[in-house]
């Protein structure tokens, strides 16, 4: 059997077994070790899987993963974001769609304090969602806003997805994070623009808050609430300033960030032993899920490398289809979005990225820039049915009046906005590349 056949067979059988719903890391690892032994069993082959543990260990920035996950849980479990939500509520209430706009801004701040979208999702669904529904906001608008907004968590630094991408593409994490910031803010801006336009055309979607309710808030309280906005900025500064000045390294600043979030929650009297225990436990659960999938996928990647699968994919795109470099890139993004409907972003990251990154490198596109495109595609994958992490979280956290159909329909305009953002960054790479260029000349 030719190598191409084996590679295709591996990929196909992996998707097949995944459909049975068995745990993903087991399926990926299983296909990898069976292929390795089948191919090279007469001389080694079985030791490839274990050797990947050392690869994983060597990759230092991976240590930020449990730290940022922990940080996110501290934020959501100790309800640190309550005041923040109230701040946006009071200040943006009088604007049409203002509470939805405030929610997006809240999500931006939360994104700056954690590396995944889970924390934003949890905070959005537990704090913002009930409040907005109570005030007759359109439920499609609200669920869409929370899902889209929380997905910014992986684009606005710190970002765990960009850390993992950096490992695969062998690019500096710092450059990638810097590159993610402006596109993240741009997407937030586009979301806000969309909400504002929609609510102007149809004020029923996001009614202005009842003036009586606002009248209950004193001027003093209103301005005091602004102070709560300092908290996320403070945590972000404590984490990033020593890093930029060279006192801490990347991994150490993730520790500083985790400890800072913990300290704030203790100072605000929100942390108890029970909450700390829950945060620590959930951090272990999510970190293990990530690390075991990565370990299995490294084995899969090693066998794929051994089969020269990259050459095969390259030959398919370039020789057989005879495409130019932009056509290939666009095709890759489309295939990526399509796969994102069926695959979890972790799976996309560890299985598809290793195939595509060498092609992007060969096409001489900037790998930092591609990392941003890639992350936005992951954000879309998070939200597109039938398989999307945010969709499931939303389903689990939303009240009963929000049906699964509502959730599915709610994301359509926001996915449209994200595809627009994606296209803008493709046409104007400087949106992503300007900041890293300034910070790391």
């Amino acid at each position, binding site marked *: 059997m030719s190598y191409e056949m084996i590679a295709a067979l591996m990929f196909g059988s992996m998707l097949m077994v995944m459909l049975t719903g068995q745990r993903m890391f087991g399926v990926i690892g299983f296909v990898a070790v069976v292929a390795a032994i089948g191919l090279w069993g007469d001389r080694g082959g079985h030791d490839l899987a274990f050797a990947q543990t050392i690869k994983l*260990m060597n990759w230092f920035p991976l240590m930020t993963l449990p730290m940022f996950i922990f940080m996110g849980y501290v934020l959501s479990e100790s309800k640190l974001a309550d005041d923040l939500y109230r701040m946006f509520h009071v200040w943006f209430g009088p604007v049409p769609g203002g509470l939805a706009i405030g929610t997006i801004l809240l999500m931006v701040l939360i994104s700056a304090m954690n590396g995944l979208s889970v924390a934003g999702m949890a905070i959005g669904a537990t704090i913002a969602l009930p409040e907005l529904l109570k005030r007759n906001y359109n439920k499609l608008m609200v669920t869409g806003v929370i899902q889209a907004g929380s997905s910014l968590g992986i684009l606005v630094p710190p970002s765990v997805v960009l850390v993992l991408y950096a490992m695969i593409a062998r690019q500096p994490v710092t450059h990638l994070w810097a590159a993610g910031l402006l596109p993240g803010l741009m997407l937030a801006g586009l979301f806000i623009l969309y909400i504002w336009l929609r609510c102007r055309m149809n004020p029923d979607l996001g009614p202005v808050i009842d003036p009586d309710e606002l009248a209950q808030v004193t001027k003093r309280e209103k301005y005091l609430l602004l102070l709560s906005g300092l908290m996320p900025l403070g945590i972000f500064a404590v984490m990033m300033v020593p890093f930029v000045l060279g006192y801490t390294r990347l991994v150490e600043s993730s520790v500083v960030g985790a400890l800072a979030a913990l300290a704030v929650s203790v100072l605000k009297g929100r942390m108890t032993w029970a909450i700390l225990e829950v945060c620590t436990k959930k951090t272990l659960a999510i970190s293990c899920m990530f690390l075991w999938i990565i370990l299995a996928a490294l084995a899969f990647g090693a066998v794929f490398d051994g089969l020269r699968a990259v050459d095969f994919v390259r030959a398919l795109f370039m020789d057989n289809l005879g495409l130019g470099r932009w056509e290939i890139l666009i095709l890759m993004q489309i295939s990526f979005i399509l796969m994102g409907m069926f695959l979890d972003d972790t799976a996309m990251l560890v299985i598809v990225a290793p195939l595509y990154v060498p092609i992007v490198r060969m096409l001489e596109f900037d790998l930092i820039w591609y990392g941003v495109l890639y992350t936005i595609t992951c954000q879309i994958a998070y939200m597109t049915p039938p398989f999307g992490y945010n969709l499931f979280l939303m389903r689990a956290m939303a009240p009963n009046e929000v049906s699964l159909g509502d959730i599915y329909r709610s994301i359509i305009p926001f996915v449209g906005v994200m595809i627009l953002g994606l296209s803008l960054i493709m046409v104007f790479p400087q949106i992503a590349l300007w900041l890293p260029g300034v910070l790391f000349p």
Partner: protein
Amino acid sequence: MPRALIAFVHLVEALNYRIGRLAMWGLFVLMGVLAWGAVARAGFSPQIWTDEMAQFLLLGYFMLGGAYALQMGSAVRMDLLYSRWSDRTKAAVDAMTIFTLLIYLGVLLWGGIESTQYALEYGERRRGMWRPYMAPIKIIMCIGIVLMILQCTAFLIRDIAKLRGVEIKERHA
């Protein structure tokens, strides 16, 4: 179900729960080591052991915590079809496909044991200034993989029991 099997399930789950809880708190040890590295570098002299110790800790964290994380049901599944099945169908399919995990983990362990033997035989050390021996962390990884295999076996027994209409009680927590 034979009582020995039920006892086995409870034993394995209790063991993995305890070891997993220990690994779970290891997060703060990891933070401590990394923070100490930063403080020492800024304050007096760079420590040669903190980076590598942190790497070992991360490996230990997810290898020893892996079985507990499995117990908590944290591993992602592609639940396009899975989420629509009845508990019985889930148990039946899981009971068959759990062999993918067992085979992967088995091969992982095979490589791990060979690598550990090598580390012991040649006194393998990590490169760098500190040069710690590699055998201890490799032994810890092998233990973690064994715990994962035991946990998967416990899952298999639970699924078979479910198919026979027996529900094995959760007793570990």
